């Protein structure tokens, strides 16, 4: 099982969610985060002083999926989340050892 962790633009959440739903993935956990990368932040002004705000709002979307779907999902997400401008975000993937469905106590891939 693999966790797909996507850092997205806030406005792309709906798109990406729909794309993976259509694929058949329904378990999703979303966190509000802030981040920076190549994107260098933005300038805000408060009482005539300019502040360079480095960390901009992003959405972190996590899905644990069967290993076989990883490649497909990466493509799907990349497509749904892209604008082509700096700040589109990243996807990180890593292996998960075990999953438990709390409601039933089931473990492993069937619990995803």
């Amino acid at each position, binding site marked *: 099982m693999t966790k797909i962790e996507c850092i997205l*633009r*806030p*406005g792309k959440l*709906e798109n990406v969610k729909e794309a993976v739903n259509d694929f058949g993935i329904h378990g999703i956990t979303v966190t509000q985060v*802030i981040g920076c990368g190549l*994107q*260098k*932040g*933005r*300038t*805000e*002004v*408060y009482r*005539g*002083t*300019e*502040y*360079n*705000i*480095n*960390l*901009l*709002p992003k959405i972190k979307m996590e899905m644990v999926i069967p290993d076989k779907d990883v490649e497909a999902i990466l493509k799907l997400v990349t497509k749904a989340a892209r604008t082509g401008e700096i*700040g589109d975000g990243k996807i990180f993937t890593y292996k998960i050892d075990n999953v438990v469905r709390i409601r039933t106590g089931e473990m492993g891939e069937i619990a995803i």
Partner: protein
Amino acid sequence: MKILRTILMALTFLMTLPVLSWADEAAEAVAPAIDTGDTAFILISAAVVLLMTPGLALFYGGMSRKKNVLNAIMCSLIAMGIISIQWSLFGYSLAFGPDVGHLIGNLDWIGLSGVGVDPNPDYSATIPHQVFMVFQMVFAIITPAIISGAVAGRMRFPAYLIFILLWATFIYDPVAHWVWGVDGWLRNLGALDFAGGTVVHIISGVSALVAALVIGKRKGYGTQPMIPHNLPMTVLGAALLWFGWFGFNAGSSLGAGSLTAVAFVNTQLATAAAMMSWVFVEWLRHGKPTVLGAVSGAVAGMVAITPACGFVGPMSAIIIGLIGGVVCFLAVAVVKAKLGYDDSLDAFGVHGVGGTWGALATGLFASKAVNEAGGDGVFFGNPEQIVSQLIAIAASYAVAIIGTYVILKVIGLFTKLRASDEEQEIGLDFTQHGEDAYASTVSGSPFSPGVGAATASAPAGVVKPAL
């Protein structure tokens, strides 16, 4: 700097005018018959009506999404700045100055010249003329601000700023003259509008709809959820509106007497009734009594009773409110969806529709037993009253539709009206105002203003949107 200097010089000139003429006037009539109770009431009414504009800001702000809340607020706030100045420089003169052809006031009172402390008996014999002027000013402020609700989340701020200035001048001021000005044609016609059903609510609501159509829907409208980000803020805004509306309606009696009491009580009853009817209809239809429904209903009730509040009895007020709540609910919940326009925060659905119902209701429920200076409505044996009301409504609709359309098209020649899709996505708070409403975990560093100064000559917009 040059611009500032020019402005200052112009104002310095203006400054001398009113004070002088005003001194003369003071000399003529040494002891005007000012009533302290009436004056106290109208001044305080002016203050609470002024407070309605930030109330509207919060009412709208809470219903906005998080990224647009400051823009929603700013659209109301800035009206408190620009319209106050407009009103004192020439707006008041256009609206209430000596009549020209029953259509508009002349420019005699430009820069408040001639608008002194003695009462102007044409409008109010017991309070200083300046009190009347400032009471009317706060109406002129909130009216254009109402429009911002329909275009929230997508109108560029510079375009909005120019829009409300032109709209106040070419639409509000003339219509105010028609309805309230001495010798205004709607006033002469006998159309009843106690506190501004047509002048304030119909023309702002209808203009709002036009603006929403001209500017187009928000990006993502109908597919993304666009729901209030802070309902307690909206409740607070509604509370300030309710509070201020007593000044708005009862203050429109221009004193503190019997009629004031009537208007006050009717306002309370219609508001309460509309709150209950909206809540119950929504409860029946969707299964839950909502807080947003309660405050929306309350505002709908206040809008509906505005033209009628000094002409009807208390039980009529309850009926007007009950129906007002239902009608506005249907407008925002059913009609809007059916027709598919994007009136973001329902400026038309509440003010346009509620105001129209109120103007009609005045023609139905008005009674001379309540206010001899008013008229009898259809239910009190005078079917003709409804004709005057219909003429007033039609005229308001016409001027609002045509005027708003023309003004927007003209502004559109000079600057874009609509924020780009990208700007909408990032949010208007940052893209229009360079601010974040709720900065919490921030990281970064202040630039020295020296650095800022380096960018001072750069064109507006130097702070680039980015996400």
